[in-house]
């Protein structure tokens, strides 16, 4: 049979050797996944999958918080409220701390990038009288109407003309709308319905100022049962004597980026910027926590995944010593043996990454389902498609980090000793 060895072709022998070795490694991996060693193979896949899945869940939550698709829904609401009254500040000292010049300030805030709108909010208890002479005290809330401002204190603003026309750039001489939106509770209390005329029993209101029921909120929101009326800010200011300094107690800001909070904190001295619910996650968590969470999850996944792959590869090389020694004995170079074992390791680790991506997205779905059933009304975690790529990339990094250990292990396989056995 001598003299029949084929010669290498045009493609460099090294390239052909490497590609053929990788193909053999793939065959070995497939056989191992199906054969008697399947437990070890799938253990490695499972270990990597678990690490990647946990990382994706934590990262998804972090991304969710960071991108505001979680507790804030699409909008982020901030309330700017005064800390204390003071003569040197722009705060106006009335029976409670209030801001002054709120209309131009709200207009300035609306000009900020990422701010959708801003409206001052003034609240006063007023006594209203229905057409049938029934009168009751209700909480009047004055706002600058805006199409994006759907609810205030759980009462709809539908029915209010946007822009607070009576304010008229500080002249308080624009069109008087007299619009009042009644909560279901307020409407029931006074026995009024849309279109009814309303009298306000306050001495500062001249007789020619009329009010009417512009809308009755019969929604299911919890706040709609309280006796609340929503009205134009300037008209309430006029009604309560707060028009002199353009006063309001709070400024509500709707924004799409939490970064705007720092800008809002500089609007008024001695003020506090709060989020809508006051106890939402943003107040509990530091701004950098999502990033910290994601980085920690990444590092843990890398460390745990790499240690797991190294351990399982160690067991595998130990169990495979005889075949590795055989390869060396028949002349397969150390480089090719490394390529063979490393490829097997990389393939199973990437498979683990893919399984981890599936598990991770399942975990994100579960987190969102559980949180929406128990804590929030919107998804907590973001299941962004890019996370799938991220999971696979992390698996590849884990595989690459374990390669030096594989090289060390292979160097320790004694050819003669193994062949002797």
């Amino acid at each position, binding site marked *: 049979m001598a003299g029949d060895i084929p010669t290498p072709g045009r493609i460099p022998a090294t390239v052909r*050797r490497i590609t053929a070795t990788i193909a053999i490694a793939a065959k070995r991996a497939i056989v191992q996944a199906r054969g008697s060693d399947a437990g070890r193979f799938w253990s490695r896949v499972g270990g990597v999958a678990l690490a990647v899945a946990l990382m994706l869940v934590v990262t998804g939550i972090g991304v969710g918080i960071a991108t505001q698709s979680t507790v804030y829904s699409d909008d982020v609401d901030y309330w700017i409220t005064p800390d204390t009254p003071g003569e040197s500040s722009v705060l106006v000292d009335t029976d409670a701390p209030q801001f002054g010049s709120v209309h131009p300030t709200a207009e300035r805030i609306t000009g900020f990038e990422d701010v959708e709108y801003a409206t001052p909010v003034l609240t006063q208890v007023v006594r209203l009288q229905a057409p049938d002479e029934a009168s009751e005290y209700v909480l009047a809330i004055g706002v600058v109407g805006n199409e994006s401002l759907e609810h205030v204190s759980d009462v709809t603003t539908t029915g209010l003309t946007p822009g607070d026309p009576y304010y008229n750039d500080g002249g308080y001489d624009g069109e008087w709308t007299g619009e009042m939106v009644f909560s279901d509770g307020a409407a029931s209390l006074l026995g009024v319905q849309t279109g009814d005329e309303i009298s306000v029993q306050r001495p500062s209101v001249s007789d020619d100022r009329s009010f009417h029921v512009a809308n009755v909120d019969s929604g299911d929101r919890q706040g709609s049962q309280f006796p609340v009326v929503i009205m134009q800010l300037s008209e309430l200011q006029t009604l309560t004597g707060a028009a002199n300094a353009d006063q309001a107690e709070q400024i509500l800001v709707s924004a799409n980026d939490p970064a705007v909070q720092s800008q809002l904190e500089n609007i008024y001295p001695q003020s506090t910027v709060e989020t809508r619910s006051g106890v939402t996650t943003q107040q509990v968590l530091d701004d950098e926590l999502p990033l910290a969470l994601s980085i920690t999850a990444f590092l843990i996944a890398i460390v745990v995944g790499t240690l797991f792959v190294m351990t399982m590869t160690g067991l595998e090389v130990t169990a495979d010593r005889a075949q590795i020694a055989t390869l060396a004995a028949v*002349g397969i170079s150390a480089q090719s043996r490394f390529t063979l074992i490393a490829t097997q390791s990389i393939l199973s680790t990437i498979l683990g990454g893919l399984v981890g991506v599936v598990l991770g997205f399942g975990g994100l779905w579960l987190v969102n389902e559980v949180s929406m059933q128990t804590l929030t009304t919107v998804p907590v975690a973001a299941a962004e498609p890019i996370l799938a790529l991220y999971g696979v990339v992390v698996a590849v990094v884990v595989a690459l980090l374990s390669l030096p250990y594989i090289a060390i292990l292979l160097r320790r396989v004694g050819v003669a000793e193994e062949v002797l056995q």
Partner: protein
Amino acid sequence: MPADTPPLIECQNLTRSYTLGTQRMLSRSAERPTVTALDTISISIDRGEVVGLSGPSGSGKSTLLHLIAGLDTPTSGTVTFDGTDLKTLSGRRRTKHRLENVGIVFQHFHLLDALSARGNVALPLVELGIKKRDRRVRAKELLEAVGLGDRITHKPAQLSGGEQQRVAIARALVTNPRLVIADEPTGELDTETGAQVLDRFKSVAEDTAIVLATHDPETLAIADRVISLRDGKLVADTSKSADISESGPRSQTESVSSQSNSVQ
């Protein structure tokens, strides 16, 4: 073979000792015991010669085989392959030397489970960077030569012990090595299958030097020459052609050659 042709393998005062490492944990400085597996062996093997190594377990057969094949390095002495002292080669070059010059047949076959018979035979050709089509043709030729032309796509688990050993023989010969070593090649085969395997082995090896280590007299029967070892020492070197004293190292055993049968 012309009388002036140098031998393919020449072993000079070959000694291989192993240090027992169990005391290392207790004391690094303690004198560790050693065992001598091979003691100043000098032999030579010509091109195309079939040499049998005989002797009881622990006599040093496998150790000598590994040293000749370049799987191991001697503690002292030299193994020269076609004029090259194997001890001077780096690990990488020794591996390349085995790939190009040495075929190895193991007692336990050591085939890769994931590969077919053809894939196992072609494995050394992968390392040589041979084209896939050529690898397949060459592997098929050899499998047909060892009587496995109808088993080329079978995995090792689908082959009998004899068939697996024939695949291993085909793998050992696929690069046309100048030397084939076989450690108990029929050790796991029944007598009839072993005889068939050996017939195939000798017929396909042609001009290749073969060194067989075995206890089995049937296997030794195919050898041109039998070297007997005991306790790491050479005790007999018997040639069938009776030209025992042709070379220097071989003359070392002239005085004991008459005892070779009893040693075996």
